[in-house]
């Protein structure tokens, strides 16, 4: 069963809300609730927050329930602020967590591996609790399954939150379907501008587990090219002034140095193929950083979804 337009539309709105009140966390819950209430009927809105928001070490998550109360959404944000693609490259290229992959345990075996950094992010999701009820993510969904006999769940996020959505979807499905053998579990991962997180074996596991999944990629966004296609990042925007070398000689050097080894270690999910669109290319030469930032912004992804509808 393919992903519906309403699911895509809801997911991009839900993913955007992880960036609510990033610095003023006291207002975050109120703001997310208010904006969930504004999600339109065509996206099965208004939505209601039923768990969270929780945050550990910059990993933000919340769970929402749609208007007709049939579908839950687990929404993940992967960085403390709507990370600029610029910082993304800097932080990650200089972070050894990308160069190290660790064994995947949900299920274990078959040489499935994911990046150590994303694996750590998943550990924080396992740790999160709701402020009021003190319930963890797994226990929250267990109560839903116990009450309803079923779980229909979208798992979504943008950027690093999108990558984390893939891991969380795989982890949750393993708990409910493989271990608990629940018959009526329907989990759909939807990602926007998500980088690649694991090796070929992970990509194949994910494709097998989720024959219905959805990834939206702006072909002018560098983030989804990490880490399997740094070669393309090098040539994404034209000269003058927008090439990676003009942006930063040291970054260009790092990309050239690591692109082959990272391309061997990281393989994207390709079944079903990601949905592609071409974002924003300035008519006049612009700064690399600006072009990059605009193309990764969730607003650009949302605009595509809105137009497609």
């Amino acid at each position: 069963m393919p992903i519906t337009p309403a699911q895509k539309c809801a997911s991009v709105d839900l993913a955007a809300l992880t960036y609510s009140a990033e610095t003023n966390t006291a207002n975050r819950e109120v703001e997310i609730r208010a904006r969930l209430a504004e999600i339109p009927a065509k996206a099965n809105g208004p939505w209601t927050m039923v768990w969270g928001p929780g945050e550990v070490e910059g990993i933000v998550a919340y769970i929402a329930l749609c208007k007709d109360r049939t579908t839950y959404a687990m929404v993940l944000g992967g960085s403390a602020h709507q990370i600029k693609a610029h910082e993304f490259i800097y932080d990650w290229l200089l972070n050894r967590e990308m160069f190290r992959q660790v064994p995947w345990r949900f299920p274990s075996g078959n040489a499935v591996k994911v990046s150590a950094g994303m694996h750590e992010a998943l550990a924080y999701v396992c740790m999160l609790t709701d402020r009021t009820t003190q319930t963890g993510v797994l226990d929250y969904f267990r109560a839903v399954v116990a009450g309803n006999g079923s779980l229909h769940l979208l798992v979504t996020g943008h950027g690093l939150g999108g990558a984390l959505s893939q891991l969380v979807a795989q982890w949750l499905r393993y708990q409910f379907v493989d271990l608990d053998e629940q018959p009526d579990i329907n989990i759909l991962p939807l990602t926007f501008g998500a980088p690649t997180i694991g090796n070929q074996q992970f990509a194949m596991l994910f494709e097998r587990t989720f024959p219905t999944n959805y990834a939206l990629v702006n072909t002018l966004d560098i983030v989804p090219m990490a880490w399997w296609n740094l070669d393309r990042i090098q040539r994404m925007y034209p000269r003058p002034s927008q090439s990676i070398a003009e942006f930063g000689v040291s970054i260009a050097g790092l990309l050239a140095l690591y692109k082959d080894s990272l391309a061997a270690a990281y393989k994207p999910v390709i079944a079903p193929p990601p949905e592609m669109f071409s974002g924003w290319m300035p008519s006049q030469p612009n700064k690399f950083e600006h072009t990059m930032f605009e193309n990764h912004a969730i607003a650009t992804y949302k605009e595509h979804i809105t137009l497609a509808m």
Partner: protein
Amino acid sequence: MAVTPAQKRAAVDLAAITYTDEVNTATRARDIQAALAKIPAGANGPWTLAWGPGEVAGILAYVARAADKKTYGLAFRGTLGEISAHDFVYNWALNGDTFKQVPWLYPQGADVKVSTGMNRALAYAIMLTDPTTNRHLLDYVRGLIRASGTLRLLVTGHSLGGALAQLASQWLYNRLVEVDKNEEVYITPITFAAPTTGNQQFATLFETTFPTNYALVNTLDVIPRAWADLDGLQHLYPSPGQTVAEFGAGVAALLATFKDSLALAYKPVTRPPTDTFTGWMPQHPDKFEHTLSENHTIAIYKGHVVAETGIA
């Protein structure tokens, strides 16, 4: 109810056994099982491996069951490679994780904070799975409670494993008692050479939750002085040859720079008072590093427990 001699004696063996086959992971489960079978009857042995060993990112834990079939032990390993105190001081003094504390989640609120590094270690502990059943630790322990209606659990570890044992005890208590509302759950934290993990509010929370807990510290071990008493660490061994400054001018400078701010941020658990003993001080001046490594080993802690309890 105080911690019994048999519990202390069992805990020091359970903690030591976490270091089994650090490198050769293929034989680890089998060798841990064999070592557990040798724990003496006076320490409620032989014990058997019941869950794990699970390992993620260097964090290793297992659950074992005692001969009485009613008592369980959860043991955490310290840093990979039974780290020398030397590496510990270097790694941690230069690691930003010590200087940043994050809000504690179990339960949330009340300004309780723990070090970023130990919080990460706990996140990995929560994520751990049994290599055969692939079940998370919490789900395994809940299964024990479902089966018998009760749980008696020693939670133990040496060094960083001891610090993690404190956090994991508080986490399990919050999940099993405060959230799940189980009544017959008895968790006893027993630590050896554990550094301090959190602020005053964490220490108070831990003391309130676990009026029965046990911590053993060698007064000549530098690790338990982190991070609340770096001042004491500076003067632990005499000159010549054994002072921190002679060990490394850089380390001494770091200690001097950070000792006051860290002493404000980290406060030890003091109720019941920590049990102490005096380890090994060489008759002739020795190298700081040697004195320090010898005094931190689990073997020196076990030697004290065996002598004190009279359980061989």
